[in-house]
């Protein structure tokens, strides 16, 4: 059971101490990591992934309260393809085998993973398809399904989910379904406002941690309407329908 993850300050790119006492992250919450390209968002994620102990370039210290099952923190990067050469079904079985004897996935079949993937991919995945033949979106959908259904991770770190050509809201729902602590690196205001908190990174340091305000929730409603409009148009576009 994971209770919390606490981050103690390190140094920014100029060597100055980060301007916070501690940042506490809790399960069942979504955190958006925002900031300019090159500001240090990936380094922040990487510190958590390595459970940094003042021994990374940022000198941050990460303290885990409670247990990370199997010590595992799942990472969903920007990669859109697999390197393994096998079919989708073989791949799912290989992944399941990693958790042999784990009661949690005893009842989980290759079909349930495939169904999860198909619920977020715009084009259906078939068990006999070669991993290498999947589209970027299908690959990403299968990656998300694997993390969500099989991987026993309490913490999920996501690098820019919106670049995937998949149903973003449904994907996030899947990833959060097991009381996970989710962190998303994003440049998208809609994704950022799905999160409960935003961690702003600048010049290699955590600048501040913002709670989503009431006014922002109203902004979210507008952004969500826009997001739905665009996804709807996208659907029509792909189907060759009139865009109205």
């Amino acid at each position, binding site marked *: 059971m994971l209770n919390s993850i606490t981050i103690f300050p390190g140094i920014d790119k100029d060597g100055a101490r980060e301007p916070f006492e501690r940042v506490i992250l809790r399960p069942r919450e979504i955190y958006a990591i925002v900031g300019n390209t090159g500001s240090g968002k*990936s380094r922040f994620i*990487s510190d958590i*992934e*390595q459970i*940094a*102990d003042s*021994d*990374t*370039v940022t000198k941050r210290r990460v303290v885990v309260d409670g247990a990370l099952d199997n010590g*595992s923190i*799942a*990472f*969903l*990067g920007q*990669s859109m393809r*697999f*390197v*393994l*050469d*096998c079919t989708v079904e073989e*791949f799912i079985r*290989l*992944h399941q*085998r*990693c958790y042999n004897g784990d009661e949690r996935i005893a009842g989980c079949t290759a079909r349930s993973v495939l169904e999860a993937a198909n619920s977020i991919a715009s084009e259906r995945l078939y068990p006999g398809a070669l991993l290498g033949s999947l589209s970027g979106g299908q*690959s990403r959908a299968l*990656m998300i399904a*694997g*993390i969500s259904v*099989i*991987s026993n*991770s309490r913490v999920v770190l996501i690098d820019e989910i919106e670049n995937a050509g998949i149903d973003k809201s449904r994907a996030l729902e899947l990833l959060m379904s097991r009381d996970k602590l989710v962190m998303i690196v994003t440049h998208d205001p809609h994704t950022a406002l799905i999160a409960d908190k935003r961690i702003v990174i600048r010049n290699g340091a955590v600048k501040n941690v913002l709670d989503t305000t009431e006014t922002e929730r109203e902004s979210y409603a507008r952004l969500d309407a826009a997001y739905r409009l665009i996804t709807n148009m996208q659907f029509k576009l792909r189907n060759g329908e009139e865009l109205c």
Partner: protein
Amino acid sequence: MEQKVIIFCGAASAGKTGVISRLTNSIRQSGETAALCKIDCLKTGDASLYDKLGFPYTIALSEDVCPDHFLVSNLQELINWGAGLNARYLLIETAGLCHRCSPATKHTISVCVIDATASLSAPEKLGPMLLTADIVAITKIDLVSQAEREIIAYNIRQLNPGATVVCADCVSGYGIAILWREILVMPAYTADADDRLRHTMPAAVCSYCIGERRIGVKYQQGVVKKIFADGGGLC
């Protein structure tokens, strides 16, 4: 002074130099000293890279001799050399050629470096190198998905349950802190008198080992192993 001797082995292009290069940063940041040795066969382009790492190094070419035999034949002297330099860490990079041997000895720390993007059967093919390793570093981890990462690590654990598996991306430096923590808790090199290889080197001294180039059974002496007992049927 206590010295840790770490031998890095793995297939060619797996990322051994990258791991060592990143690790020297951790050693420097901890205020520790190191000496580095790169073993290669005929030539190596790594001298300029090693030059930048800021620690004394030696590039050793095995030339006519098997590079793994060459390393073992020189291990004691290399350890003396490192001790003479007051290096707390002696990092030795092997040539990364055939998978027949493991350069690991009882008292050295053996790090086997595996490329995450290599085929699923790659770990199995590494044989003794992987089976005798204390730490297995999976490199280029940024190029594979979470599931693939778990599958590769699982396969390695099946082959060598005692080893610690570390995932790393030497471009961003991810994972090196974890590797460094693992090395910190490993024992120092002590009883050199009874140090021995963890796995035997090949039993082969044949004509080709001593420079023969001609092909055919009449030129072959010593330990010669044949695929077909009947000479392939025609001769």
